[in-house]
């Protein structure tokens, strides 16, 4: 998402001294300690995804001031507030257009949207489609827990058929979205899916997607023991982790069409799409500017 624009300088941080390591956690400087404790329930997956994200930006060694996190509303939406970077907690569903404005106004920034499935795909669904269509240079990470957590467990556009939510008490009778398929069809340059037990792979995926020119999308299947778990008798976070472990199969490059989430069926993970044949928004915009102001114009 950034290689279309300004140069990246890698910064290798100084090694922590033993003293520092004893007194603090190596990721402390990425978090706003004064905002802890966080609001998440025990066993919630949002924190795992946050950890994967900050590990990824640590590994990328790009100047931290260039990273911006934008989120919408919901349990996952709170991630922005805990990360010690420039962070924006916007309105419900509108993180992507806010981030789009920010990124195209200043391509130096490396903008990541982290939000939930309801935020990104119900109220914000249209923005997702268009950001992917434009191939705008953003990474969108969706923490998908199949439910609205913050408001207490209502039906989401990702809730599997027949599942119980507080607004589908007799079982969900709506088809859910297959998010990787949607992202692919809309034109995303990079599409992957992981779960909260695949943290190393998720971290690598975030690193890769951050460097990808164009629109990248990563779905992370994540437990919500309080909402989804309780209503659907999925047990605690550990039971969900076991479930993810048993049911997941990694099939890189497989067709997202086959990756729909169905109750009791295998869960297909991996890197589905990684394409370079569609120039990004910023790339096309640069070409247009060259035509308008001549080849020598500097941005």
């Amino acid at each position: 998402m950034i290689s279309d624009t300004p140069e990246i300088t890698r910064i290798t941080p100084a090694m922590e001294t033993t003293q520092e390591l004893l007194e603090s956690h190596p990721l402390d400087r990425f978090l706003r300690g004064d905002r802890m404790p966080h609001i998440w329930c025990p066993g919630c997956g949002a924190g795992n995804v946050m950890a994967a994200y900050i590990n990824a930006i640590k590994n990328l060694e790009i100047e931290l001031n260039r990273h911006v996190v934008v989120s919408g509303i919901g349990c996952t939406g709170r991630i922005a507030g805990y990360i010690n970077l420039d962070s924006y907690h916007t309105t419900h569903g509108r993180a992507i257009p806010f981030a789009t404005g920010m990124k195209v106004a200043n391509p130096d920034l490396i903008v990541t949207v982290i939000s939930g499935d309801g935020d990104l795909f119900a109220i914000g669904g249209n923005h997702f489609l268009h950001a992917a269509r434009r191939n705008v240079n953003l990474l969108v990470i969706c923490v998908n827990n199949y439910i609205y957590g913050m408001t207490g467990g209502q039906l989401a556009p990702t809730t599997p058929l027949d599942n119980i939510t507080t607004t589908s008490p007799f079982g969900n009778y709506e088809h859910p979205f297959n998010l990787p398929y949607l992202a692919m069809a809309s034109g995303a340059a990079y599409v992957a899916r992981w779960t909260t037990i695949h943290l190393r792979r998720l971290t690598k995926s975030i690193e890769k997607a951050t460097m990808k020119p164009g629109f990248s999308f990563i779905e992370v299947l994540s437990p919500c023991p309080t909402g989804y778990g309780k209503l659907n008798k999925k047990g605690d976070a550990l039971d969900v982790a076991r479930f993810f472990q048993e049911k997941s199969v990694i099939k890189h490059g497989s067709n997202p069409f086959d990756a729909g989430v169905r109750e009791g069926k295998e869960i297909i993970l991996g890197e589905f799409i990684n394409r370079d044949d569609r120039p990004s928004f910023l790339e096309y915009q640069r070409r247009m500017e060259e035509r308008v102001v001549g080849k020598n114009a500097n941005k």
Partner: protein
Amino acid sequence: MTTQTLSGEFFMAGNAAAAEGAIAAGCRFFGGYPITPSTELAERMSRRLPQIGGVFIQMEDEIASMAAILGASWAGKKSMTATSGPGISLMMENIGLGVITETPCVIVNVQRGGPSTGLPTLVGQQDVMQARWGSHGDYEIIALAPGSVQECFDVVIKAFNFAEQYRTPVIVLMDECTSHMWEKVVIPPPEEIERINRKTPDGPPPEGEDFYPYRCTDGTMIPPMPKAGDGYRMHITGLTHDEKGYPKINAATQDKLVRRLCDKIRKNADDIVITEDYMLDDAEIVIVAFGTVSRSAKSAVRIARKKGLKVGLLKLVTIWPFAEKKIKELAERVKLFVVAEINYGQIVNEVERCVAGKAEVRLSSKLGGELHHPEEILSAIPEVVV
């Protein structure tokens, strides 16, 4: 980078003049969605911005447009959108986000007749109360109304300056008549145009020290605004927040925040409120009008004066905050206010509130679709036999 800003005399429509005003004010980001009768403004920005190093993006709807200009403003660009009718309704939620996060930006609403799809191609002034109260919650907003093509240029510059100075979204209440009317516009050379830029902090505090993005130490109630990427590592949220920008869900933080958000506008009303007097000195009857209607009102004053009636015009350029002081002063000495507006009575209620029974207040109302004829305004004056 080319800096092709125009100067000289031009013949153009209001939408074009508003676009040029934005460019002259330093606007370098436009996010918008086509909607009649504002579309030509977006079209002109799509042509002009790439020529001068700015960014134009056509968003997927007005909700996205409003979100995008907020993001662009935090990226350090002066940003604008333009819309109309249903589009301004869709923008309301993120206008609220702009208010609470104190994000400078300009929203042009080329008013057409409503409600709903209403009269897409015809004039209205029915969004004045919406401009004031359209987003939920308690807040103050700045709204300005140009009455000619020249004023579309001038007022949009003012709007940017207020937005930057007071760190707030500013709404420009144009209307279909001014947007499509062609007139002469004089664009001064760039160095003669007053441009205000937002205050910025002196630099991020040293490692280990906290930064307070919403702390104001100079008594202005307007904290300096860093941009993303400058190293401040700030958290900006639409939740009620403290000076550090952190969410605090309690009554005390809410009280402090909302009071400051409102007071930074209320207490500067004298600076923000712009009105124009026409033959008011000896007037016994005052026509209050804004936007294109102020031109019919001016003719009405001339006709009345010929009949020997002491009629004057108070033209509101700033609609919000309301010209309270001015109306109160006039109410002490005049006997009748006639409020001419293309709606079923919106600003008339504000006038009544300020007049507080000290004079008579009458409404001259058109419901949208056409301007008042001067005679229609005059017919609200009992002494006039038209």
